[in-house]
């Protein structure tokens, strides 16, 4: 227990605004305790008021807006969708875009190659048309009969 002299001294300092927090704590402890000197009883109310005020608690709820985190999730989902969409789109376009059929870039080379190809085709046609000469024989024989009938 604090000596009564200390208490009185601290109380004086308290009203001058010069007591320390430690002294004030001891004052509160003294005045909310069981043994208070009769001549100091008038201060009980003051210090118990402070002690009691400190017991008050915030009993309400804390309502924070819930929209924010949700919209964040949604925007993340949306941006992922957009990315996937863009990826698929460009992927498809690239596949359709394969216009590379092995053409020649240089027009002279292209012309030469075309010529060669056409010659090749021409020689095939020559080969095949030579076989058609056999048909002449056939015509001769039919002519013989048709003309004779005429």
């Amino acid at each position: 227990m604090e000596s009564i002299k200390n208490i009185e001294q601290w109380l004086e300092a308290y009203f001058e605004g010069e007591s320390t927090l430690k002294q004030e704590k001891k004052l509160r402890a003294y005045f909310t305790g069981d043994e208070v000197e009769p001549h100091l009883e008038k201060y009980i109310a003051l210090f118990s008021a402070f002690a009691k005020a400190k017991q008050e608690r915030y009993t309400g709820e804390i309502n924070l807006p819930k929209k924010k985190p949700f919209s964040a999730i949604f925007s993340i989902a949306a941006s992922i969708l957009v990315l996937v969409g863009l990826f698929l789109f460009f992927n498809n376009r690239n596949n359709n875009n394969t216009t590379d059929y092995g053409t020649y870039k240089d027009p002279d080379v292209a012309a030469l190659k075309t010529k060669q190809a056409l010659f090749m085709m021409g020689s095939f046609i020559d080969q095949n048309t030579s076989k058609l000469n056999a048909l002449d024989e056939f015509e001769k024989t039919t002519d013989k009969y048709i003309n004779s009938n005429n």
Partner: protein
Amino acid sequence: MNQKDFLTIVRPFQDKIYRLARRLLTSEEEAQDATQEVLLKLWSKKKQMTTYRNTEAFAMTMTKNYCYDTLKAKRSSNVSLVHTNYRDNSFDTVKETEVSDSVNWVYKMMKDLPEQQQLILQLRDVEEYTNAEIAEQLEINEGTVRTALSRARKTIREGLLEKHSYGIN
């Protein structure tokens, strides 16, 4: 920072916000609204929160400003301040019931103090902040805190002595 982190940061001083608002405003409901408002404001500033040197001091400053604004709005709309009785639901000992009448008397006297003195008395004698912390929270200088503290305490002492000499206690 998610809501859980925020609530963890706020938990140690949410009661202090409430009690400060409770001291200045008239009813429990108003004080609860004030607490909710201040925390909401703090939440909306959560991105800057880590840059504040002291979130608690910042929150107390916001509470002070909110209460001042509320009181100002009330005064301008000509609603008179009515003292509501403090509900006594925490202490039940015999001694407390004996004392509670004069405790309420102290609260009543506190309410009659100028706003700044109410705040300082609450922050110092209830929340046990240092004068330097109070000065930071209320955006005033330390000398002012000390003077106002002494004035507030003396005013209440006068009231107590007066009441005591009537022998009501």
